[in-house]
């Protein structure tokens, strides 16, 4: 998957000047923020639940290798197979090999960010295998040849009119504008695909180590069809998604939909455990799990390790003033918002994502809502520190901060320099006391005035007051 994070500023500008997108983002905020608040209020004790959930995830991550081996053993005992993929290319190879082995010509997918991360659709297409997205949002994106802009609501950046145009064009049918009619049309197009697919490909919200199960939460029911109708079911999932027991998964389920969409529970919660056994009325003949590392294990034992607790609810982005302003695409890879600004540099590298850790006000709204207490602002600061240590920041920024620290460390110099600066800024402020232009001041001044200072510093005035 191409990384365009280095074009963040330009991409953000495109979002800020797109009225349709701005309207859609406004609705997202209004809907998800209040829905989450209401759903969280239903819990007797959110903080206690969150502490317990955090502890479960932290325990798994601390012993990740062991939990994964337990999971693998349980899957094998159920008659399934486990494949380990060190990176995206390995995941693609494993999946194509499985498809070839089972003579698969068509793959039906349910929504999965891990498959986005591994560019699975492109790899399947290159191998001559048809792939069809069956989550409504992902289906729309596949038709439009676009990327998800949100990890839970992938098509949040598009409005109904755009979908109507898209369907009319791609389906060659009369244009529908009613949402129910559009959904019906998508369903009519998708039904035959479930029935004719040889392989169902899903992600997983959790992997349960004790039972060898993949647990997925969905609202549309497509996930259940994808995982039970085709003869082969493949779960492609990041290694960090494992939890010890079904009980642990149940605990996390109290928080995941509430944090994500404000639902007490999703319409479907599927626990998928191995291939069909004799006597089972349905289910796949073959069950495979591809465990994808793709850089995750590098975070183990690192300051950024808490990021591996993430359960991909999207609450951080729903509450982020930056995400709310620009949506997901400017972040330039698979994962947007605060979690993406930590995960993307961690997985694809600091040097290709320079803006991401810095394009945050560190307001902390994300860490307040995170159901597994990931200290996102601290992790963003950690990444900034690494940028600094690796000399990845602009010379101007390095110079400004170094100079500032030097001045602030020398009281007489500090008092002198600030006194001069106050007078200079006062002059730029003019009669109204508002600065509209300054050398190097464009970043601030392009959209704002700068209220001018009083022309004497506090320390000057205070000294004068003490010795009149």
């Amino acid at each position, binding site marked *: 998957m191409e990384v365009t994070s280095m074009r963040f*500023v330009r991409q*953000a500008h495109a979002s*800020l000047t797109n009225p349709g997108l701005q309207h859609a983002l406004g609705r997202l905020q209004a809907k998800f923020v209040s829905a989450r608040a209401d759903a969280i209020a239903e819990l007797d004790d959110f903080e206690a639940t969150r502490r317990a959930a955090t502890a479960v995830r932290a325990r798994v991550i601390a012993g990740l290798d062991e939990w994964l081996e337990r999971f693998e053993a349980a899957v094998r005992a159920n008659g399934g197979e486990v494949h380990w993929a060190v990176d995206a290319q390995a995941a693609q190879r494993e999946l194509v090999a499985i498809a070839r082995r089972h003579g698969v010509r068509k793959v039906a997918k349910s929504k999965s960010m891990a498959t986005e991360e591994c560019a699975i659709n492109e790899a399947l297409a290159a191998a001559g295998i048809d792939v069809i997205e069956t989550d409504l949002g992902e289906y729309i994106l596949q038709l439009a040849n676009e990327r998800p802009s949100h990890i839970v609501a992938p098509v949040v950046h598009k409005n109904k009119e755009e979908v109507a145009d898209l369907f009319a064009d791609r389906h060659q049918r009369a244009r529908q504008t009613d949402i129910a009619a559009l959904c019906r049309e998508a369903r009519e197009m998708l039904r035959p695909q479930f029935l004719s697919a040889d392989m169902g490909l899903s992600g997983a919200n959790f992997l349960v180590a004790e039972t060898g199960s993949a647990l997925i939460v969905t609202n549309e029911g497509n996930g259940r069809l994808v995982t039970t109708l085709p003869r082969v079911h493949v779960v492609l999932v990041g290694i960090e998604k494992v939890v010890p027991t079904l009980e642990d998964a149940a605990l996390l389920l109290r928080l995941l939909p509430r944090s994500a969409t404000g639902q007490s529970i999703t319409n479907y919660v599927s626990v998928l455990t191995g291939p069909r056994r004799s006597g089972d009325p349905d289910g796949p003949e073959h069950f495979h799990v591809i465990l994808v590392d793709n850089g995750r294990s590098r975070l183990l034992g690192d300051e950024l390790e808490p990021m591996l607790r993430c359960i991909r609810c999207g609450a951080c982005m729903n509450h982020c*003033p*930056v995400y709310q*302003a*620009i949506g997901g695409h400017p972040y330039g890879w698979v994962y947007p918002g605060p979690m993406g600004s930590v995960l993307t540099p961690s997985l694809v590298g600091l040097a290709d994502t320079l803006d991401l850790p*810095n*394009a*945050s*006000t*560190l*307001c*902390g*709204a994300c860490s*307040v809502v995170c159901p597994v207490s990931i200290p996102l602002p*601290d992790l963003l*600061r950690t*990444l*900034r*520190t*690494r*940028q*600094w*240590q690796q000399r990845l*920041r602009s010379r101007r*920024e390095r110079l400004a*901060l170094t100079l*500032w*620290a030097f*001045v*602030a*460390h020398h*009281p007489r110099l*500090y*008092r002198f320099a*600030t006194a001069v600066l*106050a007078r200079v*800024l006062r002059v730029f402020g003019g009669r109204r006391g*508002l600065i509209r232009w300054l050398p190097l001041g464009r*970043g*601030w*001044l*392009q*959209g*704002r*005035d*700068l*209220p001018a*200072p*009083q022309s*004497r*510093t*506090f*320390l*000057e*005035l*205070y*000294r004068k*007051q003490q010795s009149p």
Partner: protein
Amino acid sequence: MRVGLFVTCLVNLMRPRIGEAALRLLAAAGVEVQVPEEQSCCGQPNYNGGDLNAARMLARKLLRDFDDCDYIVVPSGSCASTIRTHYPQLFTDTADHNSIASLATRTRELTEFLVDVAGFDTPPGRFDGSVTYHDSCSGLRELGIQHQPRTLLTRLPGARLVEMAQAEQCCGFGGAFAVKYGELSTHIADAKCRDIAATGADAISAGDLGCLLNIEGRLRRRGDHKTQVLHIAELLAGAEATWK
């Protein structure tokens, strides 16, 4: 009780009358205050920029400047939180950790100190009109400051507190963020300005000058020259600066 006022670099440079107001409030609360003249910056720009060595250097300096104070009072939630929340993280496993941790526990944001420590609830100022209050992020989420400024505002003669929608939403300042991502920062500030305008309040107040410069700068550029933008200390002490 020895109380030191750390005015912050932004107040020192951009709006000294906030420091003056803080001194008047502390005097009204019956607290004797010292103002170490060697003080400068807490190092937050360097800390948030990832330049931790410089941040540590300025933290040690602040420790020297205020070491003999029982309390360090700061008219800024984000600077207070840099000292209280983040300094200890900077000095984990170092010889300075204990003295830094002690400095951290003695640091209070201004309204927090007035209400929680000094038990002060009779602000000497007066403001005839309605005021809306913006919760600055670090003060709110890292220090839990929310009721203290409101307690004081509701006791300010003449003033009427009107809450804006999303008072807890970030104004888009974010320090260097406001300069590096000016367009984005302005867009976020715009949402704050709309929420402020919707209250029809005569004044918008907050506990952090950074947010206030951002909000005032955007309000003025939008053509609003009427809404007063005042630091909570200025409001509570009376906005008139007397030092010349």
